[in-house]
């Protein structure tokens, strides 16, 4: 059934007949671009439904106006103008970037030594170490945040410990409900996202490069700053982006640990979609935040490129 004309090809007995493929299969075979899109297609569908459509809705909504419980659907940039004019939005936006900037710096600084240790000094069971480092992720985000509340609180672990040791007379109040509290908690929560890319970039470094640097006269410190750090920069940059972007928009940690000083733009956006019930305003703030982050991301990338070129 598969090939009725086999009998006609008696001359070629022994050689298996070339199987004809369908028209689409043939086209796929011929065009690499088509093959690429074909492989991508499930992802493309999900991306379209999950990102492009909601994004379009968000943009459209940001151009509407809220009237009571409904929307005025005439397109206007009034929300964006309000966001630019009212100082509270700008101030919160700025504070969010500063807090998550510090959180990013803290996370990368904390993760680097851990990743370095596993990459260079662990020779057995590397996988186990990596898994152990992702332990904070094994509980829910909310629980982790609450745990920090217990640690940092007025009668929390740190304060009671310091009081017991006689180092302080009264509990430290700045620990909880402050920007520091938010930075500490964010850094702890996101550390695994920083360890993995940094670990991968460190692991990839050819060990003979380090020996060569030593051979050419570098002590351990000089070698780190001249070889290890520059070669692991891709991991550091990836880690920075992975942490900076989501933490800027975070609202759970600041809501629970930030207090009035630690409020971030994410809280404001959440308020607009919740109690305030001004969805168009929330949508414009969300888009404004996104543009802001993209701009900072681009500046950061440009800076690393300049830095790299100057180093070389």
């Amino acid at each position, binding site marked *: 059934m598969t090939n009725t004309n086999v009998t006609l090809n008696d001359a070629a007995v022994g050689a298996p007949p070339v199987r004809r493929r369908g028209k689409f299969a043939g086209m796929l075979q011929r065009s690499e671009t088509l093959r690429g899109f074909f492989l991508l297609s499930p992802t493309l569908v999900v991306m379209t439904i999950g990102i492009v459509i909601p994004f379009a809705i968000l943009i459209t909504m940001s151009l509407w106006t809220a009237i009571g419980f409904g929307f005025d659907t005439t397109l206007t940039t009034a929300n964006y103008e309000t966001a630019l004019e009212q100082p509270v939005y700008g101030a919160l936006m700025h504070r969010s970037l500063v807090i998550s900037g510090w959180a990013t710096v803290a996370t990368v600084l904390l993760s680097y030594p851990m990743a370095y240790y596993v990459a260079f000094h662990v020779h057995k069971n590397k996988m186990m170490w990596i898994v152990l480092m992702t332990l904070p992720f094994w509980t829910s985000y909310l629980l982790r945040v609450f745990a920090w509340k217990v640690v940092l609180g007025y009668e929390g672990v740190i304060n009671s410990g310091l009081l017991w040791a006689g180092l302080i007379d009264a509990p430290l109040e700045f620990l909880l409900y402050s920007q520091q509290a938010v930075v500490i908690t964010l850094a702890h929560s996101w550390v695994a996202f920083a360890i993995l890319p940094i670990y991968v970039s460190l692991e990839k470094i050819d060990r003979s490069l380090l020996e*060569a*640097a030593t051979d050419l006269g570098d*002590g351990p410190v000089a070698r780190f700053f001249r070889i290890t750090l520059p*070669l692991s920069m891709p991991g550091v940059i990836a880690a920075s982006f992975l942490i900076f972007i989501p933490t800027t928009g975070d609202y759970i940690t600041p809501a629970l640990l930030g207090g009035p000083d630690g409020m971030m733009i994410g809280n404001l956006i959440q308020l607009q979609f919740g109690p305030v019930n001004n969805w168009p305003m929330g949508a414009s703030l969300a888009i404004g935040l996104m543009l802001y982050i993209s701009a900072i991301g681009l500046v950061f990338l440009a800076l690393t490129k300049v830095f790299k070129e100057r180093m070389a």
Partner: protein
Amino acid sequence: MSKDAFISIRNVDKYFGKFQAIDNVSMDIGHGEFFSLLGASGCGKTTLLRMLAGFENPSKGEIYIDGQPMSEVPPHHRPVNMVFQSYAIFPHLNARDNIAYGLRRQKLTKQARADKVDEMLDLIALPGYGDRAANELSGGQRQRIALARALILKPKVLLLDEPLGALDKQLREQMQLELRALQRQVGITFVFVTHDQEEALTLSDRVAVMSAGTVLQMDTPSGLYEAPKTRQVASFIGTMNFFEAQVKSTNGAMMNIEAQGLGNLQLPRGERHFNEGEAVQVAIRPEKLRLTDDKPEGDGQMVQGQLRNSSYLGERSHFYVAIDGVDRPVAVSAQNRTRFAPDPTDERPVWLNWSDDAIVVLGKD
């Protein structure tokens, strides 16, 4: 330690866990010498080189460079530089910065540094390549940059870990010549690790043949080739025909040996002074045997055999001759001096002859 030894390795052992990589090695390397460590992989040659560089420390024994004991000196303070097998060119730096890498510790002006790098680029015949990024360099170019990077620091010793292994044959031969010329030019002691015996013979003033963590023999290239001390060295360097033999009688400096297949041989007793009745081996290089169709004139040493097969290699041919009483066919190498010589491949009876000094007598081990 001999007086003119520049590098002196004294009774060095090296263990990795329970595995002994180096077993009581001692050697002296002279100033300005091109010295090679030759051996199959796993023989300890790279470990020895890494101990000179300071990346490994001897478990026992001491290494002296220019009279200074080295075991307490960290690698970045040793007066040696290394060319790595993988070249280890820093991928984030261009050729110029790779070469200038080690200069940072010498406080030089920008101009002085640039001049030094240019000088090096000229030396390695890559002028104008300074601004090439690391990934724009070919294998041979990387090899030269790695060389320049080490030489610019004017080390007392340059260590080379199979630096030509990754190059294709033609480039490798060219680099061998350049390396040798460069070594003469800069006058630095080179310690060169290789598993390629031809390369070791071509380049070196002296070669140490290593196996299983020990030095089998240390000699000049011709010494190793023409006067190997053990069967292992004789078979590792080039091709060698071996014949079982026994010392029949000795007479002062001469001895009479009965060799399987070759008959009675009158030979000098040599350094080892073999005793009467001792079982020995007689060895002869393929190119020292002459192959003829007709019985050679005169009454020199000769034997008749049957030509089995041959291979044509262009400038020379290899013949394999079966001799009565010898298990393996004897290899003979001959230059193809005439063009279109009659086809030598037919199986036929042939004669082999040789001169007395072509024969090496080895102990039975």
